């Protein structure tokens, strides 16, 4: 397990472009909105939660495309299926490392983006917390899509077609939490709901991803 984690981290460290690209994409999308709408702080403040979440959603589908693809092509997944360790544990490690490099980095970038969209600094904690929970859900849900499209043709647009409808609840609760926080209201409810979605997606995604990987291997 530790070995798998270390391997994943080493891979990510050697190819920083894989996890940096979605972050750059995220900042670019966030930049587009003030330019295309208007830079007035009031407008930006009302739009900010939606903008941040849509950007996070799109950048996560971008990073998920290659989640299993390289390992699939190089035969690593095959070894995992054959190995004595339970497949779901290995997959869980992989998703956790992916979340660390996509979600946690996004969370660290988010305060900058939030400040630039005129979100008050008192709400930054909720912005980071909701993004951390939400990107974990997105990594898990996206892993289902990535595993399902492993041996499919035209898989890049297919992945977002499958993942985005299922990511809708995350978008709703995450954006609502940020919205409430920037208005200075209590955000506990929305964050709890987001947390329960996380628990649900752990229990739903791991068996589904494992099944999908096994099917792709046959």
């Amino acid at each position, binding site marked *: 397990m530790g070995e798998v984690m270390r391997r994943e981290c080493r891979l990510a460290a050697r190819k920083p472009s894989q996890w940096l690209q979605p972050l750059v994409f995220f900042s670019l999308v966030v930049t587009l909105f003030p330019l295309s709408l208007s830079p007035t702080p009031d407008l930006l403040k009302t739009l900010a939660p939606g903008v941040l979440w849509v950007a996070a959603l799109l950048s996560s589908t971008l990073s998920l495309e290659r989640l299993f693809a390289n390992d699939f092509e190089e035969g690593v997944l095959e070894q995992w299926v054959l190995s004595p360790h339970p497949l779901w544990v290995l997959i869980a490690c992989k998703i956790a490392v992916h979340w660390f490099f996509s979600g946690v980095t996004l969370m660290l970038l988010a305060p900058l983006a939030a400040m630039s969209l005129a979100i008050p600094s008192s709400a930054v904690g909720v912005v980071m917390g909701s993004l951390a929970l939400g990107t974990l859900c997105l990594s898990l849900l996206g892993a289902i899509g990535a595993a399902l499209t492993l041996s*499919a*043709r035209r898989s890049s647009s297919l992945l977002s077609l499958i993942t985005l409808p299922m990511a*809708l*609840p995350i978008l*709703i*609760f995450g954006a609502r939490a940020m919205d409430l926080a920037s208005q200075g209201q209590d955000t506990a409810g929305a964050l709890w709901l987001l947390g329960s979605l996380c628990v649900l997606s752990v229990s*739903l995604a791991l068996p589904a991803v494992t099944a*999908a990987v096994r099917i792709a291997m046959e």
Partner: protein
Amino acid sequence: MGRWTWFHRLASPPSCYQTAQTLKPWFWVPAVVLLCFGLGNGLYFAPKDYQQGDAYRIIYIHAPCAWLSLLAFSTMAIASAIGLIWRLKLAHALTSALAPLGAAFTLVCLVTGSLWGRPMWGAYWAWDARLTSELILLFLYVGYMVLRASFDDVDRADRTSAVLAVVGFVNVPIIHFSVNWWNSLHQGSTVIRADGPAMPAAMLIPLLACFVGFTCLMAYLACVRLRAEILVRERRPSWLLTVDEHHE
């Protein structure tokens, strides 16, 4: 063991092919009768609504389609689970036969709903909870069909899309709940309520007839599509010859 022989017989393509054929008249006759009665009564003879006038009559098409869009998805998910667990190819054939039907009913539901929304809410589309979840359901259907179409190998397409159907089915209530929490404008339930249906019998009976009639229509279409699906999958001449002997 003896109790399950019917199941084994149904699970073999030739007998399923024939069972679907024998079931066909049991579905299309009631469908025609009930839809003639239900739609005729609902669209012409049922009394006008005191508030909505004639516009409410679209419920005779809209509500059954909404019900079928969910029924088809649930059936697909159950069939997919059966196909995944017991490796039953016919269950996958049924799922792929149902997907376009479910998508079509979802689309009809959305179109009739927006036609009704124009005079009632003043807009073809409103970002209401039920409308949005129905739209997302349509996207789930489309995602399922596109995923299915992007595999060359039938077996792999079956099992991969079956995983998606099951995952999507688990997600439908979550999506519905979250969207509901977000915004709701749709009128409340009319037929299923704690204090009985809020509808006079002259309106209710045709509506129930439409529900059953449309369901029979979908079952009939599913039989037709399932037969076609089996034919495509079992393109072995010897098998076709045995079918011809028994039948037609």
